[in-house]
């Protein structure tokens, strides 16, 4: 700590340069944060998908349905523990921009399949007892100011007409990355008004042993092979990943942008540190002359670089965190705007790594500086 004033004093030497260097770290790490948040928004389903759940869709396309009769056959498949199903219901609340994921769910089995979502028993019982009942995620309820007992008008798009639902429950989740934007209502109600009876959007099965996922998936697809409704079964994670992939290689895009930004930052900081050391040659020589060791001088220069990286990186990450806390800016399309702590730590480590790489060469040149040569240059 007794050397801290040496470090801070040097940063005050060229205030504009220090501010600009810190600023470049702020921008880079803020961008890093945004990229992580956006990547997370796209791939959140992949990260949180249940390891013991399989997702079964029509082999032709997810928009093709499967027969309700498959439920019992799925339950009879070796390795399958339980089954549920749901349908996508395209709906609009007030404005098409207000995106909400509406699902018609099998009320008998859906809640059990997703224990990560929590809803009070009495609320669930009220939902079960009301044919027009619905359960919404806490985020969506908060977004639109819905309360239990509210009657919500929804305009159907895939299933046209004006639909009205009574909010009977609000579910929550423990993990911040869990999706609490969904809107569930009774599958039976959808089925009653659908021209194609007994049409299920997709099935979700829980398997007894996650290690058997591939085997059970194959058994299911084999079971329905050569039928009018062949199936395609994947783990929930694989399904979510393929869904994300349809939007393009987000990961590659993010990595490319991130790499360019950090390489540029490396050059900027490296140049700054090199200039800072060059213009302080005599001072570093004096430090050595009065008894500071070569190692101290090296660490001193490196610490300066790391200090800039830490302050700038930390500010950038905090800004990104603040941005994520402001919530989803896409009107519900990407509801998971969350900046996990582990990525904040990764961001700081990344900033420190850039600080180290940028500072190491100037630090070594400072360490190797010969006092006599340096003083002769004054």
């Amino acid at each position, binding site marked *: 700590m007794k*050397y801290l004033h040496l470090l801070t004093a040097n940063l005050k*030497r060229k205030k504009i340069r220090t501010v600009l260097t810190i600023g470049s770290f702020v921008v880079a790490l803020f961008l890093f944060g945004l990229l992580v948040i956006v990547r997370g928004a796209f791939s959140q389903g992949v990260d949180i998908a249940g390891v013991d759940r399989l997702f079964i869709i029509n082999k032709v396309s997810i928009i093709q349905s499967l027969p309700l009769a498959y439920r019992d056959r799925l339950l009879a498949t070796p390795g399958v523990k339980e089954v549920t199903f749901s349908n996508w219901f395209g709906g609009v609340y007030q404005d098409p921009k207000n995106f909400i994921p509406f699902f018609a769910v099998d009320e008998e089995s859906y809640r059990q399949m997703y224990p990560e979502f929590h809803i009070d028993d009495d609320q669930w019982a009220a939902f079960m007892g009301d044919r027009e009942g619905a359960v919404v995620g806490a985020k969506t309820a908060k977004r639109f100011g819905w309360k239990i007992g509210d009657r919500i008008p929804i305009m159907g798009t895939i299933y046209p007409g004006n639909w009205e639902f009574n909010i009977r429950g609000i579910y929550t989740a423990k993990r911040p990355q869990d999706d609490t934007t969904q809107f569930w209502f009774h599958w039976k109600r959808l089925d009653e008004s659908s021209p194609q009876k007994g049409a299920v959007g997709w099935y979700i099965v829980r398997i007894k042993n996650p290690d058997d996922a591939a085997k059970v998936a194959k058994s299911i697809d084999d079971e329905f092979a050569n039928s009018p409704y062949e199936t395609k079964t994947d783990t929930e994670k694989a399904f979510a990943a393929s869904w994300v992939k349809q939007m393009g290689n987000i990961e590659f895009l993010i990595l490319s942008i991130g790499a360019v930004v950090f390489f540029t930052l490396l050059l900027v900081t490296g140049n700054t540190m090199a200039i800072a050391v060059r213009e302080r040659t*005599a*001072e570093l020589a004096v430090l050595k*002359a*009065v*008894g500071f*060791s070569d190692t101290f001088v090296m660490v001193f220069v490196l610490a300066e670089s790391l200090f800039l990286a830490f302050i700038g990186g930390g500010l950038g990450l905090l800004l990104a965190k603040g941005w994520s806390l402001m919530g989803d800016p896409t009107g519900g399309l990407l509801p998971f705007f969350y900046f996990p702590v582990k990525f904040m730590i990764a961001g700081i480590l990344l900033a420190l790594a850039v600080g180290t790489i940028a500072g190491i060469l100037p630090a070594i040149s400072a360490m190797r500086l010969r*006092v006599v040569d340096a*003083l002769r240059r004054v």
Partner: protein
Amino acid sequence: MVRVDGRGDGKSLVCVRGLEKNYRRGSEVIHVLQNLNLDVDKGEFVAFMGPSGSGKSTLLNLLGGIDLPSKGSITVDGDEISHMSGGKLTTWRARHVGFIFQMYNLLPVLTAFQNVELPLLLTKLSGAERRKHVETALSVVGLADRMNHYPRQLSGGQEQRVAIARAIVADPTFLLCDEPTGDLDRKSADEIMALIERLVREFGKTVLLVTHDPMVAERANVTLHLDKGVLVEGTVAEARA
């Protein structure tokens, strides 16, 4: 006592024997110091004079342990420094040497207090003890009231006095002054020399000083001349006679 004939008893504070320093410029070898001997007792004030390129600063750098000789030995207060490793030499410098440079070489981002405190950061003294030492050193050089000033807020003479305070604050074995008045006007130079004399007289410091200025050299107890890498006592003309 100061001797340049190499016949001292080896018990002097500074004892130099057969010192040589050569530089290589391409294929040419430049002999800066040749077979130089020197004995300086504690409390002496020695001035080194000589033309540019005669090796005065090189000698001072060697004595201060910031350069290594090509040949010969340097012993200071019983420590043979000419073969010390870099790390040991650094530690030795911190304990034994106080440097005073022509250009003061204060750190512009630090206050006078912080500049003087620098050598003490290497010690185990507490913050309060360091403060006491720094205040004492600044009082000795007459700048106790300027301790919070930055170098840019001080005159050249005041900057050099801060540099002197920095050199003496850790109570080193000897002070090495390389043209300490070279960048000052006559009045400031006189003040600096008076201060250095006082350090010798009142505090018993050993001072080795390099200068071009005969008026500065006159204030030393002994003046030694370097001519073509060889040390002679008195003026060069006297020595040749």
